[in-house]
């Protein structure tokens, strides 16, 4: 098996560019981490070490920031990130049922967020601010409102079918 030519190099070059673009400024750490996470889809520890070296700050501090914010993931996420809103409005309208359905459908749990094939990551998130449409779920950047257990299953099935079609 040949490796994807230079994908890692490209990602790494992006890290360099991101740091340059932010002027090696440690007050931009959160922005830098966001952009690096966009490039890698998560924050690999070695890259955090590298960022710390470049910004001349302790690795522990970078790690501390990366583990403080819910958005940052130190583990690789799936191709499709499903977020189920657990804000007040969604909760009152039964978002926990959606979560239960998806957990069992994707064989995930509160502890295990990503499927083994790296296809799906499921997260319960705080309010997405679309309370008028509760309960809400988001797949990557697409928002689905007034989702019930049946519909969320269909949404996932559609993705799986589309993937199979492509493959």
């Amino acid at each position, binding site marked *: 098996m040949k490796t994807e030519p230079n994908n890692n190099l490209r990602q790494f070059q992006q890290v360099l560019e991101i740091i340059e673009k932010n002027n090696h400024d440690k007050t931009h750490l959160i922005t830098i981490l966001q952009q690096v996470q966009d490039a890698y889809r998560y924050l690999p520890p070695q890259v955090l*070490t590298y960022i710390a070296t470049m910004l001349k700050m*302790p*690795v*522990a*501090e970078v790690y501390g920031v990366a583990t403080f914010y819910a958005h940052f993931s130190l583990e690789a996420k799936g191709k499709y990130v499903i977020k189920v809103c657990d804000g007040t409005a969604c909760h009152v309208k039964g978002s926990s049922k959606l979560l239960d359905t998806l957990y069992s459908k994707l064989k995930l749990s509160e502890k295990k967020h990503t499927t083994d094939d790296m296809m799906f990551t499921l997260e319960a998130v705080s309010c997405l601010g679309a309370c008028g449409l509760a309960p809400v779920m988001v797949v990557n950047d697409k928002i689905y409102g007034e989702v019930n257990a049946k519909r969320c299953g269909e949404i996932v099935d559609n993705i799986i079918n589309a993937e199979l079609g492509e493959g």
Partner: protein
Amino acid sequence: METKGNVNIDGIIVPIDNEKNLLELIRKADIELPTFCYHSHLSIYGACRLCVSDIEGMGIQATCSIQPRDGMIVRTNTSEVRQIRKINLELILANHKIDCPSCSRSSNCKLQDLARRLGVTKVRFKQTNSHLPIDDCSNSIIHDPNKCILCGDCVRACKEIQSVGAIDFVNRGSQTIVGPAFNKSLRDVECVYCGQCVSVCPVGALVPKPETEEVWDAIHNPEKYVVAQIAPAVRVALGESFGIEAGVITTGQIVTSLKRMGFNKVYDTSFTADLTVLEEASEFISRKLKGELLPQFTSCCPGWVKFAEQYYPELLPNLSTCKSPQQMFGSVAREILPKMLGIKPENLVIVSIMPCTAKKFEAKREEFIHNGLADVDHVLSTEGLARMIQETGIQFNKLKPESFDLPLGFKTGAGVIFGNTGGVSEAVLRYAYEKITGETLIDTDIKIVRGMEGIRDVNIKLGDLNIKLAIVHTLSNARKLCDKIVAGEANYDLIEVMACPGGCIAGGGQPVSFDTDFRMKRMQGLYNTDKQLELHKSQDNPYIKELYKTTLGEIGSPKAHELLHTHYHGRKRITDQVINIRNTVHPKIEIYVCLGTNCYIRGAHELMKQLTQYVTENKLEDIIGFEGQEDMVDVKGTFCFERCEKGPVLRVNEHILEHATFEKAKALLYKEIQRIGLLVNK
């Protein structure tokens, strides 16, 4: 002077001076409010919420975060305040691993003390403490996160006092813990083992690593001959574990208890401190007169040495080549004691008693281990020795003082003040003055180098020679100075660096003190010792003269160099960090390019980019015998080959290339390809 007004504290009128906050002012009313997270030498954090009081018009406030203002009326002990403190303590206890009887901080634990003082006899909450692994991998410090109460004192000490930041908060909310990056061990990160985290930890979450069992084993082994060396700062602090005030000198009692415990000989590290003075001062005078590399940094503090290795590899040639007094003691003892005492070299066990956690690390450095035999076998911290004495039941306070053994137990006052910031400088000046001017120094107290200021600039004239001296304590101050020197903004001849605030007297191995004045008291104790001794100048130590005569020859002689000098090298800050650039599964050739700070400055990135492109574009993966199977050449980024001064550095399989260029790297790569097989079509 203008009056700053008064505050009414529980009915007592207390005038405001320059108190940083209300908590300090309340102390002036002789009330010690409970607190975990307030330390006068650290920034205000305001997290433990125990120092709360009721301020009229402001309600319940944490006094550590309030500026005293004229006319304030403060009640420190209302029923509401009491209830808040008690519930807070109860909450902390519910999340604390309660194994008090077996905790080394038992009886010197703030949590234990406050729970008793505040009458918290029952915890009504569910016990929620975690069961995280204990980190005991480093040689210096044990970290038990299950006991941590998250006051953040250690985090701030490491960051603010030392500018290291090896530990920080990890995660958020109730998941928060304190620790190094990626949950690594302290062994594998940039921790310099100074132990300032230990000395501010209110509980037993960070403690010095004990070596007491190993020492007992040696004592109880009839074949072994166990000798002790005691560092200067130990004698003014050990008593604190027995209820004696900080700064009271208990040298004699320490010697007696060591003898009673079964040590064969008890010596003084101050002896080799005297030796250090002669070697280091001579090195300095020689550099100064010959116009060689200056400033010369002292190198007796192992925390500072590791710090310099990690952050200022370019300044390592400026470090004095002298070993620290602890290590000089080890090599001298190994050299002369077996013969003198008629014992087999391998049976000599050298135990040092140090105020320091970094000394434990220093003793295990590979530079100081020869043929499997360490110059110093075991390092006990001051508090570790105190616990050993307590175990034996020896009544320390009742002991009759005894004297050190000779010759390695004889010292001058110069060797004792080593434990204070400015001490090494003063001792060196006492020697250098006489050496340079040829005159006798009458008043040996050189007070201009003493004090607690973080960076002290001293200009001193020795004969015709102007000496520009800097005395620095804490590594954050050292960093400030080093940055200036690297940038060419400051010029000095000699720089003394001590990692701990105040010097070794406040080291991480000392008993943890809650006395707000403990540093000053211990410091004064050492100056008093100097006064009480007969001799004050290292060069006057007769046994040192004898040692040169019999063993070392001249100061700075080849023999002296063999035994008393060493060299340090660049050091990585974190282990096992490799960035996959190509992600090859089973490579035959691996190219590692260092991406550390120093190599980055010297263009490592460009090199890595060129190499990766070159490997891909020229299909170097197709090596005869392996063609078309998988990628054969992998490129990875890594951090530090510990050869910072020779960067950029890269490695092709096991061959390291210093001062690497693309052409040189290519040549090396081809050599390696030839070794494995030939390229297809090449």
